[in-house]
């Protein structure tokens, strides 16, 4: 258990640290709480795995510093950082039994045999692999190997757990089950954990705080709920939540309250309108999540912030129905009640929940909204 501090961490493979565009990881700053579960998420190549490997010491850092439990480990070898890691490939030792796989690190520490046995057996019990201890990894299923990899990490009782997409080789159902188990395990052991994934659902369900990365840069670090409600920019807004947030680019009206083009006009009132008034630019992007759009019956007279369009695709999911609607040139996804019957080609009216709208700067793509203090 420890606080992990990353200060201005940079990774640059070209060797020219001054060239920020070539940085695989650029100016990464994060201080964890003790025992926090941090998820690093982003599309492939965003630098999340590189960041984790730098914490592990498997990659050198090109700049900045990393401290674990108050000790600067920036240039300390992986074996001396007191961390344990679960690899995507599990990286079990094929020639050793499950027991020896889990005992390996303890044997290297010259721990007495009796204590090794106790620790391994305890961990095996927690992970429900006690009956597999004598087997070789090749005689295990994917899910069992995954548990052994977790077991190898937890017997160490390290200061930090690092997990690099540990669930990506499991089938969908097992992934959901194991996801919950890892969370339970974390709550029980209380070890500071870094978890890398490209799956935003995994990130949202597991992370106490999530670091969203893109092109080596941190986009936002926040709790799942705040990421969803107060995305810092259009990338985060589009990345978090399924289906993705809809974006409508339009001109800011003369009253400084509306964003509109020839096909839609949205009136931003209250605090949202105030930021728009203060913004002063000619254009802005309005973001609205599919779940914040709702179906309006043709006879309904409601006419405040309504999008008029044509249904293009209908995707019934059972509990809800996803529809894609063309509003002029804009394709908008909406989540509507599954009992509403709509068909392709139908004209449709969608009501926007004004208080859920997001507003972004059209050029920097940054959110104009001020999130409340955490």
């Amino acid at each position: 258990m420890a606080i992990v501090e990353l200060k201005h961490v940079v990774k640059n493979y070209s060797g020219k640290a001054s060239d920020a565009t070539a940085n695989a990881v650029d100016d990464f700053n994060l201080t964890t709480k003790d025992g926090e579960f941090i998820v690093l998420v982003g599309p492939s190549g965003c630098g999340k795995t590189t960041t984790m490997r730098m914490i592990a010491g498997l990659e050198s850092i090109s700049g900045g510093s990393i401290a674990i439990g108050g000790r600067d480990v920036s240039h300390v070898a992986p074996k001396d950082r007191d961390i344990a890691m679960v690899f995507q490939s599990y990286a079990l030792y094929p020639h050793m039994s499950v027991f020896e796989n889990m005992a390996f690190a303890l044997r290297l520490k010259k721990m007495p045999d009796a204590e090794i046995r106790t620790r391994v057996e305890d961990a095996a019990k927690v992970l429900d692999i006690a009956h597999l201890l004598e087997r070789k990894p090749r005689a295990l299923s994917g899910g069992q190997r995954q548990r052994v990899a977790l077991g190898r990490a937890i017997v160490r009782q390290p200061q930090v757990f690092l997990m690099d997409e540990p669930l990506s080789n499991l089938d969908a159902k097992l992934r959901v089950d194991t996801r919950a188990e890892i969370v339970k395990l974390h709550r029980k052991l209380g070890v500071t954990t870094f978890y890398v994934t490209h799956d935003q659902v995994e990130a949202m369900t597991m992370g106490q705080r999530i670091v969203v990365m893109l092109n080596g840069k941190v986009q936002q670090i926040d709790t799942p709920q705040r990421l969803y409600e107060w995305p810092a920019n259009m990338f985060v807004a589009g990345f978090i939540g399924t289906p993705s947030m809809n974006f409508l680019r339009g001109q800011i009206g003369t009253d400084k309250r509306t964003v509109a083009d020839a096909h839609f006009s949205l009136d931003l009132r209250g605090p949202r309108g105030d930021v728009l008034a203060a913004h002063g630019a000619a254009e802005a992007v309005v973001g609205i999540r599919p779940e914040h759009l709702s179906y309006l019956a043709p006879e309904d007279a409601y006419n405040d912030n309504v999008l008029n369009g044509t249904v293009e695709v209908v995707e019934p999911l059972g509990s809800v129905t996803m529809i894609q609607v063309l509003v002029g040139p804009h394709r908008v996804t909406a989540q509507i009640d599954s009992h509403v019957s709509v068909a392709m080609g139908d004209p449709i009216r969608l009501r926007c929940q004004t208080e859920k709208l997001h507003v972004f700067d059209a050029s920097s793509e940054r959110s104009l909204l001020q999130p409340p203090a955490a």
Partner: protein
Amino acid sequence: MNHRRYVDFLLTALAYLVALVMFFPILWMLLTAFKTEQNAFTMTPHFLFVPTLESFKVAFEQGSGYMHYALNSAISAVVSTLVGLLLAIPAAYAMAFYPTKRTDFTLVWMVSTKFIPAVGVLIPIYLVYKNLGLLDNIWGLTALFTTMNLPLLVWMVYSYFKDIPKDIVEAADIDGANTLQTMLRVILPLALPGLASSGLLALILAWNESFWSLTMTDHSAATLAVYIASFKSAEGLFWAKMSAASVLTVAPIIVLGWFAQRQMVRGLTFGAVK
């Protein structure tokens, strides 16, 4: 269906034919070894004859005796193989798991040293050995064999190490193992079949080596290659004795190869099937 069987038959027959052609010299050597000198020298080859151990008896006692040469062959082959592996394993480890920009070049360069014909470097090496007093010295010969086989060993061990996922090395690293512990407890056990076949190949190559043995040794460090060559004389009959000596020379390595066969096949196909 019939056509298929026909092709199978032809292929099998062809395989037997090729095997026979390749095996024939060994068979002929074996037969000749059990003949009398007169019998061995006849123009019409005899396949049926009364076998005799006469040639073996004479051959065994020739020069300093078979055991002297066999011991030299064994020392030079075994020691050069062991030292070769000892040097090749760390080199291959570094190149396989911590490659740099120049790793590929280094590998190609190492093998390129094998492109030069041995005669090309005979004179400089001979002079160096002469001045160092290493001529006709078993350790001098062993050192030559070691350097001769080292590029091959590095290449082979490198390719076996390459088949081991780097994640496993990193896992050991994080588990707290130092380089030596990673190598001894994780990498070597995994690469063992490959190391065994690499070692066996180096052993065979050193055992069979004749060029350097003939040029750099005379008596005290002479190996079995020198022993065989010593039977060749300008006058008199020597085919049966020479064949007997050859049989005595190849026998140990064939027996060893036979026992190592399984390990060897596993090693050579290691990584090919996953």
